[in-house]
Protein backbone atom coordinates (compact mmCIF):
# COMPACT_ATOMS: atom_id res chain seq x y z
CA UNK A 1 0.00 0.00 0.00
CA UNK A 2 1.39 3.34 -0.96
CA UNK A 3 2.04 5.79 1.83
CA UNK A 4 2.90 8.72 -0.33
CA UNK A 5 0.16 10.71 1.33
CA UNK A 6 1.61 10.24 4.80
CA UNK A 7 3.83 12.97 6.12
CA UNK A 8 5.17 13.19 9.61
CA UNK A 9 5.91 16.89 9.45
CA UNK A 10 2.45 18.12 10.24
CA UNK A 11 2.66 21.87 10.53
CA UNK A 12 0.85 22.36 13.79
CA UNK A 13 1.31 22.69 17.52
CA UNK A 14 -1.11 19.91 18.33
CA UNK A 15 0.03 17.68 15.50
CA UNK A 16 -0.43 13.95 15.71
CA UNK A 17 2.95 12.33 16.13
CA UNK A 18 3.71 9.92 13.28
CA UNK A 19 6.92 7.95 13.93
CA UNK A 20 8.63 6.06 11.15
CA UNK A 21 10.66 3.66 13.29
CA UNK A 22 10.03 1.68 16.45
CA UNK A 23 12.82 3.61 18.13
CA UNK A 24 11.08 6.90 17.43
CA UNK A 25 7.81 5.47 18.72
CA UNK A 26 9.40 4.15 21.92
CA UNK A 27 11.22 7.39 22.55
CA UNK A 28 7.98 9.29 22.17
CA UNK A 29 6.24 6.93 24.59
CA UNK A 30 9.07 7.39 27.09
CA UNK A 31 8.71 11.15 26.97
CA UNK A 32 4.90 11.30 26.75
CA UNK A 33 3.40 8.79 29.15
CA UNK A 34 -0.18 9.77 28.36
CA UNK A 35 0.11 9.11 24.62
CA UNK A 36 -2.80 7.38 22.92
CA UNK A 37 -1.72 4.93 20.22
CA UNK A 38 -3.66 4.75 16.98
CA UNK A 39 -2.99 2.63 13.93
CA UNK A 40 -5.57 2.76 11.11
CA UNK A 41 -7.85 4.80 13.34
CA UNK A 42 -10.99 3.05 12.04
CA UNK A 43 -12.11 2.33 15.58
CA UNK A 44 -10.04 4.75 17.66
CA UNK A 45 -11.12 7.94 15.90
CA UNK A 46 -14.72 7.35 16.87
CA UNK A 47 -13.91 7.24 20.60
CA UNK A 48 -14.21 10.71 22.08
CA UNK A 49 -12.42 9.68 25.28
CA UNK A 50 -8.94 10.19 23.83
CA UNK A 51 -6.40 11.31 26.40
CA UNK A 52 -3.13 13.06 25.73
CA UNK A 53 -1.51 13.29 22.37
CA UNK A 54 -2.14 10.82 19.59
CA UNK A 55 0.73 8.80 18.15
CA UNK A 56 -0.24 7.10 14.92
CA UNK A 57 1.90 4.05 14.18
CA UNK A 58 0.53 3.32 10.71
CA UNK A 59 3.79 4.41 9.01
CA UNK A 60 6.35 2.61 11.22
CA UNK A 61 8.38 0.56 8.72
CA UNK A 62 9.18 -2.32 11.04
CA UNK A 63 5.51 -2.66 11.93
CA UNK A 64 4.50 -2.99 8.30
CA UNK A 65 6.56 -6.08 7.53
CA UNK A 66 5.45 -9.63 7.11
CA UNK A 67 8.19 -12.21 7.50
CA UNK A 68 7.78 -15.88 6.69
CA UNK A 69 9.76 -18.19 8.94
CA UNK A 70 9.98 -21.94 8.72
CA UNK A 71 7.23 -22.68 11.23
CA UNK A 72 5.44 -19.36 11.62
CA UNK A 73 4.51 -16.09 10.05
CA UNK A 74 5.49 -12.84 11.71
CA UNK A 75 3.09 -10.02 10.99
CA UNK A 76 3.87 -6.41 11.89
CA UNK A 77 1.13 -4.77 13.95
CA UNK A 78 0.54 -2.01 11.39
CA UNK A 79 0.08 -4.30 8.41
CA UNK A 80 -3.25 -3.37 6.82
CA UNK A 81 -5.72 -6.24 6.60
CA UNK A 82 -6.01 -5.83 2.82
CA UNK A 83 -2.31 -6.55 2.42
CA UNK A 84 -2.54 -9.52 4.70
CA UNK A 85 -5.40 -10.93 2.65
CA UNK A 86 -3.39 -10.63 -0.54
CA UNK A 87 -0.46 -12.43 1.03
CA UNK A 88 -2.92 -14.90 2.38
CA UNK A 89 -3.52 -16.58 -0.89
CA UNK A 90 -0.14 -18.23 -0.49
CA UNK A 91 0.99 -17.97 3.08
CA UNK A 92 -1.83 -17.51 5.60
CA UNK A 93 -3.66 -20.39 7.28
CA UNK A 94 -6.90 -20.75 5.30
CA UNK A 95 -9.08 -20.24 8.36
CA UNK A 96 -7.43 -16.88 9.02
CA UNK A 97 -7.98 -15.86 5.43
CA UNK A 98 -11.61 -16.85 5.72
CA UNK A 99 -12.00 -14.67 8.83
CA UNK A 100 -10.25 -11.73 7.16
CA UNK A 101 -12.59 -12.00 4.17
CA UNK A 102 -15.46 -11.15 6.47
CA UNK A 103 -14.03 -7.99 8.04
CA UNK A 104 -16.26 -4.99 7.38
CA UNK A 105 -16.89 -3.53 3.97
CA UNK A 106 -13.70 -4.39 2.01
CA UNK A 107 -12.32 -0.82 1.59
CA UNK A 108 -12.07 -0.65 5.38
CA UNK A 109 -9.32 -3.23 5.14
CA UNK A 110 -7.08 -0.76 3.33
CA UNK A 111 -6.55 1.14 6.57
CA UNK A 112 -7.58 -1.22 9.41
CA UNK A 113 -4.57 -3.05 10.82
CA UNK A 114 -4.00 -6.41 12.50
CA UNK A 115 -2.70 -4.75 15.69
CA UNK A 116 -5.73 -2.48 15.86
CA UNK A 117 -8.06 -5.41 15.32
CA UNK A 118 -6.59 -7.23 18.29
CA UNK A 119 -6.56 -4.19 20.54
CA UNK A 120 -10.12 -2.88 20.17
CA UNK A 121 -11.09 -2.50 23.85
CA UNK A 122 -13.42 -5.01 25.49
CA UNK A 123 -13.95 -6.76 22.19
CA UNK A 124 -13.01 -10.11 20.71
CA UNK A 125 -13.52 -9.77 16.99
CA UNK A 126 -13.90 -12.86 14.77
CA UNK A 127 -10.37 -12.61 13.38
CA UNK A 128 -9.01 -12.30 16.92
CA UNK A 129 -10.89 -15.48 17.86
CA UNK A 130 -9.29 -17.33 14.96
CA UNK A 131 -5.85 -16.01 15.93
CA UNK A 132 -6.43 -17.40 19.42
CA UNK A 133 -7.28 -20.81 18.07
CA UNK A 134 -4.20 -20.72 15.89
CA UNK A 135 -2.20 -20.12 19.08
CA UNK A 136 -0.90 -16.79 17.83
CA UNK A 137 1.29 -14.73 20.14
CA UNK A 138 1.56 -10.98 20.35
CA UNK A 139 4.71 -9.01 21.07
CA UNK A 140 4.18 -5.95 23.25
CA UNK A 141 6.90 -3.39 23.90
CA UNK A 142 7.24 -0.77 26.55
CA UNK A 143 10.19 1.35 27.45
CA UNK A 144 11.15 -1.13 30.16
CA UNK A 145 11.20 -4.19 27.92
CA UNK A 146 9.41 -6.59 25.64
CA UNK A 147 7.05 -9.47 26.36
CA UNK A 148 5.10 -12.05 24.40
CA UNK A 149 1.45 -12.59 25.16
CA UNK A 150 -0.16 -15.91 24.23
CA UNK A 151 -3.60 -15.02 22.92
CA UNK A 152 -4.93 -18.47 23.71
CA UNK A 153 -4.13 -17.94 27.37
CA UNK A 154 -6.41 -14.92 27.64
CA UNK A 155 -10.06 -15.22 28.55
CA UNK A 156 -10.72 -11.54 27.94
CA UNK A 157 -10.04 -9.20 25.06
CA UNK A 158 -6.34 -8.55 24.50
CA UNK A 159 -6.82 -4.82 25.16
CA UNK A 160 -7.36 -5.52 28.86
CA UNK A 161 -3.93 -7.12 28.95
CA UNK A 162 -2.11 -4.30 27.14
CA UNK A 163 -0.85 -1.63 29.52
CA UNK A 164 -0.89 2.07 28.89
CA UNK A 165 2.16 3.09 26.88
CA UNK A 166 2.67 -0.44 25.60
CA UNK A 167 3.04 -0.87 21.87
CA UNK A 168 1.93 -4.00 20.05
CA UNK A 169 4.68 -4.67 17.54
CA UNK A 170 4.25 -8.15 16.04
CA UNK A 171 1.84 -11.02 15.81
CA UNK A 172 3.35 -14.47 15.41
CA UNK A 173 1.11 -17.04 13.75
CA UNK A 174 2.18 -20.71 13.68
CA UNK A 175 1.91 -22.11 10.18
CA UNK A 176 0.62 -25.57 11.05
CA UNK A 177 -1.61 -27.18 8.39
CA UNK A 178 -5.22 -27.97 9.24
CA UNK A 179 -7.27 -30.33 7.16
CA UNK A 180 -10.68 -28.82 8.03
CA UNK A 181 -11.67 -25.41 9.31
CA UNK A 182 -14.58 -23.07 9.78
CA UNK A 183 -15.01 -19.46 10.82
CA UNK A 184 -18.53 -18.21 10.60
CA UNK A 185 -20.25 -15.15 12.04
CA UNK A 186 -23.94 -14.59 12.56
CA UNK A 187 -24.95 -10.94 12.80
CA UNK A 188 -22.45 -8.09 12.92
CA UNK A 189 -19.55 -8.42 15.32
CA UNK A 190 -18.78 -4.71 15.15
CA UNK A 191 -19.64 -2.36 16.77
CA UNK A 192 -19.90 -4.43 19.92
CA UNK A 193 -23.43 -3.96 21.09
CA UNK A 194 -25.33 -6.63 19.27
CA UNK A 195 -26.27 -10.19 19.37
CA UNK A 196 -23.52 -11.41 17.07
CA UNK A 197 -22.00 -14.86 17.29
CA UNK A 198 -18.80 -16.22 15.79
CA UNK A 199 -18.03 -19.91 15.73
CA UNK A 200 -14.56 -21.01 14.71
CA UNK A 201 -12.97 -24.42 14.68
CA UNK A 202 -10.14 -26.32 13.07
CA UNK A 203 -9.28 -29.91 12.79
CA UNK A 204 -6.31 -32.04 11.79
CA UNK A 205 -7.35 -35.47 10.55
CA UNK A 206 -4.98 -38.27 9.79
CA UNK A 207 -6.25 -41.55 8.32
CA UNK A 208 -9.83 -40.76 9.36
CA UNK A 209 -8.74 -40.11 12.93
CA UNK A 210 -8.77 -36.74 14.66
CA UNK A 211 -5.21 -35.86 15.66
CA UNK A 212 -5.95 -32.34 16.87
CA UNK A 213 -8.98 -30.12 17.25
CA UNK A 214 -9.54 -26.56 18.43
CA UNK A 215 -12.91 -24.88 18.68
CA UNK A 216 -14.45 -21.81 20.26
CA UNK A 217 -17.27 -19.31 20.02
CA UNK A 218 -17.68 -15.66 20.93
CA UNK A 219 -21.04 -14.13 21.66
CA UNK A 220 -21.71 -10.38 21.43
CA UNK A 221 -17.98 -9.95 20.64
CA UNK A 222 -17.40 -10.45 24.34
CA UNK A 223 -18.20 -13.83 25.85
CA UNK A 224 -15.74 -16.52 24.92
CA UNK A 225 -16.38 -20.23 25.15
CA UNK A 226 -13.66 -22.80 24.68
CA UNK A 227 -13.29 -26.15 26.38
CA UNK A 228 -9.86 -27.68 26.15
CA UNK A 229 -10.96 -30.80 28.01
CA UNK A 230 -13.40 -31.55 25.24
CA UNK A 231 -10.77 -30.81 22.60
CA UNK A 232 -8.45 -33.31 24.31
CA UNK A 233 -11.20 -35.93 24.51
CA UNK A 234 -11.87 -35.70 20.80
CA UNK A 235 -8.29 -36.60 19.88
CA UNK A 236 -8.21 -40.17 18.59
CA UNK A 237 -11.93 -40.23 17.68
CA UNK A 238 -13.01 -41.19 14.20
CA UNK A 239 -13.67 -38.53 11.64
CA UNK A 240 -16.39 -37.75 10.58
CA UNK A 241 -17.59 -37.84 14.16
CA UNK A 242 -19.94 -40.73 15.06
CA UNK A 243 -23.34 -39.97 16.64
CA UNK A 244 -22.23 -41.33 20.02
CA UNK A 245 -19.32 -38.89 20.13
CA UNK A 246 -21.55 -36.07 18.83
CA UNK A 247 -23.84 -36.64 21.82
CA UNK A 248 -20.83 -36.29 24.12
CA UNK A 249 -19.89 -32.98 22.43
CA UNK A 250 -23.43 -31.72 22.79
CA UNK A 251 -23.50 -32.59 26.45
CA UNK A 252 -20.09 -31.19 27.39
CA UNK A 253 -20.23 -28.05 25.29
CA UNK A 254 -23.83 -27.38 26.27
CA UNK A 255 -22.84 -27.52 29.95
CA UNK A 256 -20.24 -24.76 29.62
CA UNK A 257 -21.04 -22.10 32.25
CA UNK A 258 -20.55 -19.08 29.96
CA UNK A 259 -22.63 -20.65 27.25
CA UNK A 260 -25.41 -21.25 29.74
CA UNK A 261 -25.39 -17.88 31.45
CA UNK A 262 -24.32 -15.36 28.82
CA UNK A 263 -25.35 -16.73 25.43
CA UNK A 264 -28.86 -16.27 24.08
CA UNK A 265 -30.79 -19.46 23.44
CA UNK A 266 -30.33 -19.10 19.70
CA UNK A 267 -26.59 -18.48 20.06
CA UNK A 268 -26.32 -21.56 22.29
CA UNK A 269 -28.09 -23.67 19.74
CA UNK A 270 -26.00 -22.32 16.86
CA UNK A 271 -22.74 -22.87 18.73
CA UNK A 272 -23.41 -26.46 19.72
CA UNK A 273 -24.94 -27.53 16.42
CA UNK A 274 -22.48 -25.54 14.32
CA UNK A 275 -19.57 -27.31 15.96
CA UNK A 276 -21.17 -30.74 15.79
CA UNK A 277 -22.00 -30.42 12.11
CA UNK A 278 -18.44 -29.21 11.47
CA UNK A 279 -17.08 -32.31 13.22
CA UNK A 280 -19.43 -34.58 11.31
CA UNK A 281 -18.64 -33.18 7.89
CA UNK A 282 -16.32 -35.03 5.58
Amino acid at each position, binding site marked *: *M*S*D*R*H*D*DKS*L*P*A*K*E*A*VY*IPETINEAMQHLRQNRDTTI*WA*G*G*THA*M*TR*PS*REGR*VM*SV*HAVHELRRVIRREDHLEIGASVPL*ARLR*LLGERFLPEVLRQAL*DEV*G*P*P*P*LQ*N*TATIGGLLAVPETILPTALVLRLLAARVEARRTEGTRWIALAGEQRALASEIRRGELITRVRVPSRRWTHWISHSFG*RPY*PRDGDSLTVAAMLAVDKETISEVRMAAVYASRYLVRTRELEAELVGKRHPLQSRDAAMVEQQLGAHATLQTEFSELARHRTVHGIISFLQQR
Partner: protein
Amino acid sequence: MTIQAQVDGVTITRDLPPEASVMEFVGDGRDQPCADGRCLRCLVLLGDRVVHACRVPAYRAHNGNVTTAAALDSRPEYRDILRAFRRVGLGTCAEAHPYLVFLAIHHLSEGSSPGTGETGLLSRHINDRCSNRTDFERALRIAAGMRRRRTHERPARR
Protein backbone atom coordinates in the same frame (compact mmCIF):
# COMPACT_ATOMS: atom_id res chain seq x y z
CA MET B 1 -3.93 20.97 13.52
CA THR B 2 -3.43 22.24 10.01
CA ILE B 3 -3.99 19.76 7.24
CA GLN B 4 -3.37 20.47 3.61
CA ALA B 5 -4.22 18.20 0.70
CA GLN B 6 -5.34 18.17 -2.89
CA VAL B 7 -9.02 17.38 -3.18
CA ASP B 8 -10.00 16.67 -6.78
CA GLY B 9 -7.01 18.71 -7.89
CA VAL B 10 -7.76 21.72 -5.67
CA THR B 11 -5.56 22.52 -2.67
CA ILE B 12 -7.54 22.66 0.56
CA THR B 13 -6.19 23.69 3.96
CA ARG B 14 -8.15 23.21 7.18
CA ASP B 15 -7.58 23.28 10.92
CA LEU B 16 -9.00 20.13 12.44
CA PRO B 17 -8.59 18.04 15.62
CA PRO B 18 -6.76 14.67 15.37
CA GLU B 19 -10.00 12.69 15.42
CA ALA B 20 -11.48 14.59 12.46
CA SER B 21 -12.08 12.38 9.46
CA VAL B 22 -11.17 12.75 5.82
CA MET B 23 -14.92 13.21 5.32
CA GLU B 24 -14.88 16.31 7.52
CA PHE B 25 -11.76 17.53 5.76
CA VAL B 26 -13.34 17.17 2.35
CA GLY B 27 -16.51 18.80 3.66
CA ASP B 28 -18.79 17.03 1.26
CA GLY B 29 -21.90 18.63 2.69
CA ARG B 30 -22.96 15.71 4.88
CA ASP B 31 -23.29 16.62 8.51
CA GLN B 32 -22.81 13.19 10.00
CA PRO B 33 -21.37 9.89 8.94
CA CYS B 34 -23.76 6.95 9.17
CA ALA B 35 -23.92 5.24 12.53
CA ASP B 36 -22.25 1.96 11.64
CA GLY B 37 -19.76 2.72 8.86
CA ARG B 38 -21.58 0.58 6.33
CA CYS B 39 -23.52 2.95 4.06
CA LEU B 40 -20.37 3.43 1.91
CA ARG B 41 -21.58 6.81 0.64
CA CYS B 42 -18.35 8.36 1.90
CA LEU B 43 -15.92 6.26 -0.17
CA VAL B 44 -13.06 8.26 -1.73
CA LEU B 45 -9.64 7.56 -3.15
CA LEU B 46 -6.79 8.46 -0.84
CA GLY B 47 -3.79 8.31 -3.13
CA ASP B 48 -4.57 5.17 -5.09
CA ARG B 49 -6.56 3.35 -2.41
CA VAL B 50 -10.30 3.36 -1.83
CA VAL B 51 -11.06 4.24 1.79
CA HIS B 52 -13.99 5.07 4.04
CA ALA B 53 -13.63 8.84 4.39
CA CYS B 54 -15.65 8.65 7.61
CA ARG B 55 -13.19 6.16 9.17
CA VAL B 56 -9.83 7.55 8.13
CA PRO B 57 -8.34 10.35 10.22
CA ALA B 58 -7.88 13.55 8.21
CA TYR B 59 -4.17 13.68 9.08
CA ARG B 60 -3.63 10.66 6.83
CA ALA B 61 -4.50 12.91 3.87
CA HIS B 62 -1.95 15.57 4.77
CA ASN B 63 0.17 16.45 1.72
CA GLY B 64 -1.72 13.84 -0.27
CA ASN B 65 -4.44 13.50 -2.89
CA VAL B 66 -8.10 12.81 -2.29
CA THR B 67 -10.39 11.99 -5.20
CA THR B 68 -14.11 12.18 -4.54
CA ALA B 69 -16.98 10.86 -6.63
CA ALA B 70 -17.29 14.26 -8.29
CA ALA B 71 -13.97 13.81 -10.09
CA LEU B 72 -14.19 10.15 -11.04
CA ASP B 73 -15.60 10.71 -14.51
CA SER B 74 -12.53 12.70 -15.45
CA ARG B 75 -10.07 9.89 -14.55
CA PRO B 76 -9.31 7.86 -17.69
CA GLU B 77 -8.02 4.86 -15.72
CA TYR B 78 -11.57 4.16 -14.51
CA ARG B 79 -13.30 4.33 -17.86
CA ASP B 80 -13.46 0.51 -18.10
CA ILE B 81 -15.57 0.49 -14.99
CA LEU B 82 -17.86 3.25 -16.17
CA ARG B 83 -18.29 1.52 -19.55
CA ALA B 84 -19.03 -1.81 -17.91
CA PHE B 85 -21.61 -0.17 -15.66
CA ARG B 86 -23.30 1.41 -18.68
CA ARG B 87 -23.32 -1.87 -20.56
CA VAL B 88 -25.04 -3.66 -17.70
CA GLY B 89 -27.29 -0.69 -16.93
CA LEU B 90 -25.94 -0.54 -13.41
CA GLY B 91 -25.86 2.38 -11.00
CA THR B 92 -28.18 4.49 -13.04
CA CYS B 93 -29.62 6.26 -10.02
CA ALA B 94 -27.56 9.03 -8.49
CA GLU B 95 -27.52 7.37 -5.07
CA ALA B 96 -25.97 4.16 -6.32
CA HIS B 97 -23.47 5.23 -8.88
CA PRO B 98 -20.51 6.64 -6.89
CA TYR B 99 -20.17 4.02 -4.19
CA LEU B 100 -20.52 1.18 -6.67
CA VAL B 101 -17.79 2.69 -8.83
CA PHE B 102 -15.52 2.96 -5.77
CA LEU B 103 -16.23 -0.65 -4.83
CA ALA B 104 -15.31 -1.66 -8.38
CA ILE B 105 -12.09 0.36 -8.24
CA HIS B 106 -11.23 -1.34 -4.96
CA HIS B 107 -11.84 -4.71 -6.55
CA LEU B 108 -9.74 -4.08 -9.63
CA SER B 109 -6.93 -2.43 -7.71
CA GLU B 110 -6.62 -5.55 -5.54
CA GLY B 111 -5.80 -7.48 -8.68
CA SER B 112 -8.21 -10.19 -7.65
CA SER B 113 -9.58 -12.53 -10.25
CA PRO B 114 -13.33 -12.15 -10.64
CA GLY B 115 -15.27 -15.33 -10.13
CA THR B 116 -13.14 -16.64 -7.28
CA GLY B 117 -15.53 -15.51 -4.60
CA GLU B 118 -14.03 -12.04 -4.42
CA THR B 119 -16.89 -10.47 -6.34
CA GLY B 120 -19.37 -12.02 -3.92
CA LEU B 121 -17.50 -10.63 -0.93
CA LEU B 122 -17.93 -7.19 -2.41
CA SER B 123 -21.41 -7.38 -3.83
CA ARG B 124 -23.00 -8.35 -0.53
CA HIS B 125 -22.34 -4.77 0.59
CA ILE B 126 -24.67 -3.35 -2.05
CA ASN B 127 -27.26 -1.45 -0.10
CA ASP B 128 -29.22 0.75 -2.48
CA ARG B 129 -32.62 0.11 -3.98
CA CYS B 130 -31.78 0.36 -7.65
CA SER B 131 -28.87 -2.10 -8.01
CA ASN B 132 -28.55 -5.81 -7.58
CA ARG B 133 -25.69 -8.19 -6.88
CA THR B 134 -25.91 -10.12 -10.12
CA ASP B 135 -25.58 -6.99 -12.28
CA PHE B 136 -22.74 -5.68 -10.16
CA GLU B 137 -20.81 -8.93 -10.35
CA ARG B 138 -21.36 -9.02 -14.10
CA ALA B 139 -20.12 -5.45 -14.46
CA LEU B 140 -16.99 -6.33 -12.45
CA ARG B 141 -16.25 -9.23 -14.75
CA ILE B 142 -16.75 -7.09 -17.85
CA ALA B 143 -14.56 -4.29 -16.47
CA ALA B 144 -11.83 -6.75 -15.51
CA GLY B 145 -11.96 -8.26 -18.99
CA MET B 146 -11.72 -4.84 -20.62
CA ARG B 147 -8.80 -3.93 -18.45
CA ARG B 148 -7.02 -7.19 -19.18
CA ARG B 149 -7.43 -6.74 -22.92
CA ARG B 150 -6.31 -3.13 -22.79
CA THR B 151 -3.17 -3.88 -20.77
CA HIS B 152 -2.27 -6.87 -22.93
CA GLU B 153 -2.86 -5.07 -26.20
CA ARG B 154 -0.71 -2.11 -25.33
CA PRO B 155 2.96 -2.72 -24.80
CA ALA B 156 4.07 -1.27 -21.48
CA ARG B 157 5.90 2.03 -21.82
CA ARG B 158 9.35 2.18 -20.36
